[in-house]
């Protein structure tokens, strides 16, 4: 069974995925990890913004909006 990897900003609305790695600079990476976006975290795309960016994601019990520039740095596995 082939696994599909994509960056989080490509994850369609209503779909769930699992965080694999963060491809970000040290500081940005740490900030995302502090929010709980570490490998293994389940993320769901809840709602795209009215103009498609930012997007609200549901993970670890809360909804947090990220800009696509940030979501691009998060590699997820569907």
């Amino acid at each position, binding site marked *: 069974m082939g696994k599909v990897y994509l960056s989080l900003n490509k994850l369609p609305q209503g779909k769930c995925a699992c965080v694999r790695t963060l491809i970000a600079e040290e500081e940005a990476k740490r900030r995302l990890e*502090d929010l709980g976006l570490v490998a293994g975290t389940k993320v769901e795309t809840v*709602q795209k913004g009215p103009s*498609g*960016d*930012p997007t609200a994601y549901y993970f670890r019990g*809360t*909804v947090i*909006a990220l*800009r696509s520039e940030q979501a691009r740095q998060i590699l997820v596995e569907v």
Partner: protein
Amino acid sequence: MALCEDNAEYIVALVGNPNVGKSTVFNALTGLRQHTGNWAGKTVSVAGGDYSLEGQSYRAIDLPGIYSLEAMSADEEAARQFLLTKKVDAVVVVADATALERNLSLVLQVLTLKIPIVVCLNLLDEARKKRIKIDIDKLSEQLGVPVIGTNARKGRGLEQLKQAVAKVCVSGCPIRQELDEQAVDAKRRYACVEQICAQCVVFDKQDYTSFDRRLDRFFMGKWTAVPIMLLLLAIVFWITIAGANYPSALLSQFFIAFESASKSLLLDIGLPAAVVSLLAEGLLRTLGWVIAVMLPPMAIFFPLFTLLEDSGYLPRVAFNLDNCFQRACACGKQSLTMCMCFGCNACGVIGCRIIQSPREKLIAMLTNSFVPCNGRFPTLIAIISMFCVAALSGFTRSLLAGLLLTALVVFAVLMTLAISKLLSHTLLKGLPSAVTLELPPYRKPQIGTVLVRSLLDRTIFVLGRAAKVAAPAGVLIWLLANITVGGGESLLAVLTEFFRPFGCFLGLDGAILLAFVLSFPANEIFLPLVIMNYLQLGGIVEIDNLVTLRELLVANGWTGLTALCTMIFCLLHFPCGTTVLTIKKETGSYKWALISIAIPLVTGCAVCALVNGVGQLVM
């Protein structure tokens, strides 16, 4: 920080993620009325309050909401510094029971500081509604620290919390070394947290945010988000204008009666006519106008706005507008600080601390005065009522006035975006940085509390400040009008004449421009100053409603174009004195304070001159 330098025996610091009800816990503990809000990072400075238990006194310190102790924003730095450098006897980590994992991650970090700690598991009622079951005893056992379940909004569990704090203040707390090692990096911290949660938390229903999601689809959907946002804004303004009309008229009639009554009383007790005139026509009249015009709209607008804030809608506004700010190379949280500006621009400037990037924070501060604050709304409402909707009556009148005010606010927002973009490409060059915006669950606003809180905390506060400035300003303008120079002209007339050429160039006149300059201490007194000026230079004596006021203005040469330019200049001129001082304090430099004056002033002059030029051509 003088907060912990006196006689309280124990210092207790409250930390927690944003939006966990930390300020509510703080208020419930200390009984101190401190404003709490429903958006990330509302507590922007360190607040303190006292309580006592069994003869011991405690000082609770409410630290800013943070996700992590690894300092990146000003808030995190403040919290971290406080915990590390102050003598703190205990830390209460307030955790959101509905999002335990992220909250426990912070708990683990705080544990490494080796300060006695109590975990306050708040929002238990919301967790129950979402069918999340937490085994509190087991959680306490796993963490090795006391865990107290609370529901701070209803005041539940606070006695137990106080008891637990008292206990750890005396005994200290066993620190578990093995948890300590887990806390060093986020990955291990979350792995550890997951383990703990797996043992203590049960979700009965997986899809537990379905209602919130439906609301989100509506409030943040592609086609619905913007129309709903504009609609809500228009409704708030409409209710404010429609509701404030009658009480405003009543109040101004009352103050006119009061003015003439006190005038004759003062004359009767033998005060000289000049002093009586100074007190009655200078001080009382300005004060009366400010109260009559400001109090009713504020008493309606603030509760309505606090309802929106309390329900969790404002972070959705920031979400919807973030893309616009991103295009302007600014931060989406700027829309939150702009919302605070509706109340008071100085509060908006302080609110800018929630923005992480220093560059984007400066942009938000420098453009913040474009959003009309409470001191300027009454001016705008009065001008709209007099010049734009005067021919209408009843329902259509207030509705149209509401829509026009909405249009003005939209114009102010567009100007903010345009100038933010301009700044990003010139003075404050840079690319947009990362934004993480938490969208808290929708909460049913507590209507009773909202009413009391917004009336007491905001309305009375803002009104008090306005009155404090209005009284001396009334005296000042009376003096200006009654002190004559050289050729027998009053100082006021000389000054008005001085400002006339430039005022006319902007589509205003000398009196209007002078009033803008003199209302630098507080925008509230702008219209009273204009009126005083016209009255002193001859005209009608009593202004008891907007019809006579309109006659006075028209008699002094006001046209529709003057009204339009005045409204634009009211939106775009220098920020008030308090705001400028706050910007100086927040940035630590006079340079930025001066620039914060220059930017809106230059913009305002340019737009007004343009509008006036085009208007003159068309007419």
